[in-house]
Each structure stands twice: as structure tokens, then as C-alpha cells.
């Protein structure tokens, strides 16, 4: 199994940390992982993206042009990454702020209303965990228990009290992806 993912959105959306948690979860179940962020001044309030690869085998290139899954969280990223999903791949996005919705018919498209759901849960900081939950529902590449273990590893101990909150966000995400059919 090799899963190649791009996660893309705005700086403050927790794109990089979501990728990190996913990568840590892979390590928890003895897989190979890589996490390659965009870096540089464009990140000041601008767009951010990260390529995450989880695999049973040694990982070759940590930077890619095409992905099994694109998780897209703003319009700029939609414009840039919709075309990079491999045929038959998955595009998961939050429709919040999206004007031009994805158009491809050769891939699977799912929506997750993560901004709305996290606001309803009273904590927009768990936005990324809702998205991650939705993704793991669609592609259960790592077990939930390993995500929790990954979470514990990737956040400082003083924040561990927030783990139950994150767990419920993951569950919320798992319950809510909606398939988009284009015709």
C-alpha cells in the first residue's frame, strides 16, 4: 500500500499539523512516511500545502506532481490541485469559500463541511481534525487508535487534555463526508 496525498489550504487552517498527525499515525503502525511542506515567505498568511506519503515500502520521491488524494481547503488550492489527482483518485474538499467547485468526472469527489461543523462544535481549531476524520472514513489507511497515538506524539504534553476534543472532531468528520456526483 502506498498513499500519496496533498493537503492544501490557507496558513492558519492547520494544514501542516494535519499532515504531521497523519504521518505520525503511519509511524505508529510501522509504515514508512514522508511529509514535505511548502516553505518560505509566501506562508505568511498565504497558502500552505504539504505532501504526505504513507507506504508499506521505502518511499521514493517526497515531492510529486500527481496524487492519490487531494484534500483541498481553499479556492487557490482548488485551482492548483484539482488537476493533480490521479484518475480514479479522491478529491476531498470543504465547500466553505469555494466558488468554482471541482469538475472532474474521472475521480471521486467528496465534500466535508468542516468549517461549519467545527464552528458548531464551538472550536474552529479542530477544523483540521474534522477534515482528517472525513478522509480516514473514505480511506482508512491508518487506524483511529493509531491516529490518537500519533496525535499524542505530535503535540506537546501540555495540550494532551485537548485530545478528547480532537477525537470527537475526528468522529464528527467520519460521520459527515458527502459524495458529490457530477452529471
Amino acid at each position, binding site marked *: 500500500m502506498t498513499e500519496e496525498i496533498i493537503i492544501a489550504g490557507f496558513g492558519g487552517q492547520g494544514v501542516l499539523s494535519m499532515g504531521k498527525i497523519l504521518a505520525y499515525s503511519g509511524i505508529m503502525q510501522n509504515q514508512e512516511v514522508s*511529509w514535505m511542506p511548502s516553505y518560505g515567505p509566501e506562508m505568511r498568511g498565504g497558502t500552505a500545502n504539504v505532501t504526505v506519503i504513507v507506504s508499506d515500502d521505502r*518511499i*521514493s*520521491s*517526497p515531492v510529486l506532481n500527481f496524487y492519490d488524494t487531494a484534500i483541498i481547503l481553499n479556492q487557490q488550492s482548488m485551482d492548483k490541485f484539482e488537476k493533480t489527482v490521479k484518475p480514479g483518485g479522491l478529491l476531498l474538499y470543504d465547500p466553505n469559500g469555494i466558488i468554482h467547485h471541482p469538475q472532474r468526472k474521472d475521480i471521486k469527489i467528496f465534500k466535508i463541511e468542516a468549517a461549519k461543523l467545527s464552528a458548531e462544535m464551538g472550536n474552529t481549531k479542530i477544523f483540521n481534525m474534522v477534515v482528517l476524520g472525513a478522509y480516514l472514513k473514505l480511506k482508512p489507511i491508518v487506524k483511529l487508535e493509531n491516529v490518537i497515538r500519533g496525535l499524542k506524539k505530535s503535540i506537546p504534553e501540555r495540550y494532551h487534555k485537548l485530545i478528547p476534543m480532537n477525537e470527537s472532531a475526528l468522529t464528527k468528520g467520519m460521520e459527515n463526508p458527502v459524495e458529490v456526483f457530477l452529471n
Partner: protein
Amino acid sequence: MGELKLMKGNEAIAEAAIRAGVDAYFGYPITPQSEVIEYLMAEQPEERTGMVVLQAESELAAINMVYGAAAAGKKVFTSSSSPGISLYQEGISYIAGAELPCVIANVVRGGPGLGTIQPSQADYFQSTKGGGHGDYKLYVLAPASVQEMADFIQLGFDIAYKYRNPVMIQSDGMIGQMMEKVELADQRPRWTDEEIKQMHDSWAAFGKGDHRERNIITSLDLDSAKQEKHNHHLQAKYRRMEEEEVLFEEINCEDAEYLIVAYGSSARISMKSIDLARAKGIKAGLFRPITLYPFPMKQLNAYVGKVKGILSVEMSAGQLIEDIKLAVECNVPVKHFGRYGGMIHSPEEVLTALENLIKGE
């Protein structure tokens, strides 16, 4: 098994330095490697092992702090990125001339000049051909993973002390910024003053006892005949490294008709290109130099008569290709492919370049 962590290349090299029992780190912030000093400052190795960490006022100062600490027989590490490494060159030349062991990491970014902060491999000449003045060589390691970033610290110090020679770890913004799984070595104790005395009494400047002559650390000899002799000694050392310390990796090379030669990030990207090529029925293999100096000349030369062509892949306008051509002595067609100035080639672009090579374009 050691501790497993998810770390950036820059963090892994910093943690590995603490665990290798390094005595001191001197550096100056520069993207894309500032995480090295930031990690060290946050970890407070002074409390963990007594390791000194100091932010210098410039790279000129940092490399001379390295010179000083290394001259005292201490294990010293520094890191920077291309523009900063250019400023290191004077100091590196003195360090090589004075035969001081130390490890220097260059997390390469695009140039020339201020360039860009994105990954590049355009410092190959600078690392391997003597970036400063005079006839000297660095032992140059090119990590292709976060694990190797960590591992090459200890390996680097082993070589540095074996040959009393500066070691360069040449990575780039990609290996520095990406996170991978890394298995960390156990903590080694720092050398005690007594151990340093035992090991380095013949050359280091830490205070003369009655039992020996003064140790002078210098690269100066106004007597040209003596300076030539010193150079002979250096050259003999380099020849010995060329014989004994070459490292490389071969992937899918046994039946290969075409080779990609690439190091560091380009090797990682090319691994994928090889997979794509094999899926298309092209018998391609990857030859990865791990030491850029000494370059695996003989090992690559062994492919003469076996492969029909070689593609040199490097994020540069073509520097590595010169050593490949030397290695195969023009008996195999060699072409260069690479994006540069901070652009990273994709596995597909490398594949296309390989297909063009096969077509004879």
C-alpha cells in the same frame, strides 16, 4: 532499536549532534536551515550533555569559532545554507590547511547570489572541488533521507577524526525541511578532557604540559619547500580517502540498460522515475553516490560496456555530470537533466529526460 521519531531533516541533524556527544555548535540563522540552531536552543543541550550552542554574529565568525574549538581538540559542528557557506569558505580553507576535524552541514538553496530559499544542488562544485583557495578536499556526504541526515553526523565525525579533515554534509532545502521517520542513536557521552588529551595530544592546542613540545595550529609555511611537503601529505590523505572511504548505493542496477546517476533529493525523485520507467518496460537503474568526494569513480566505471547511456540528474545546470564523465572516461553517452534556481524536477520530468536520452535526443 533506538528511539523512533518523526522529524525534519534539520531537526534530526541537530538531535543527532547532541547524541553524538558534540561539544559545540556555532551558527548563524539562514533559511532553509534555521531549524538546526532553533532546535538546539530549544533543547538546551548545555543541560543535557554540556554541549555549547552559540548564535554567532555572522558566518565569518561562526566558522572561525569552529576553527578555534576544533583546534582545541573539541568535537564541533556547524550548519548553514549556500550564501552562508560561501562566507565559510575562507575558514574552511584554513581548517583544511591546518588539518582540523569538524563537521559542516550545507542545506543548499538556489543561487547564485541571494538566489532563493528553495532547494537546489548547485553547490556541488563548491563542496567537491574546493570552494576556498588552495589544494584541499572535503569529505562530502550527500544524505537522501532524514535518517541519513542523522546518521551522517556520527559517520562524519568518524571520518573527520580518522583523517583530521573537515567533513561536509551537503543536503538541501528538501531534505532539511521534510519530515520522515528517524531512528535516533543512543546518547554518547562527550569526550572528557582526559580522553581528549589521550587522543589529540599530538596536535591539539589545549595547553602544553612538560611532556611535549608546543602544538601550533597553523596553515602558514613561508618556506615553500615545506609548504609543498605539507601539500604532499594532504594529497596522500585524499588518495587514501579515495581508496577507502567511497560510499554509494545501487538500486535496480543489475539488469539496467540505462542508469540515472543522482544524489540526495534528486536520487529520491529519480527512484520514482525508475519505477515509472520500469512500468513502461525500460530497464533503468539508479546509481546514487553517497560520498560526492571521494566520488565512486571505479564503481561507476564498472558500468562501461554494460549500460547504453547515463542520465545525470541534479538540481543544477550540470555539475555532477563532470565527475560522471570522468568516471566513465567518455565510454558511455552521458546527458544532464535538472531544474534549478530553486525549482524541483518531478519524477515525470526525469522520466521524459530519460526517454529522450534513449531516443538519442
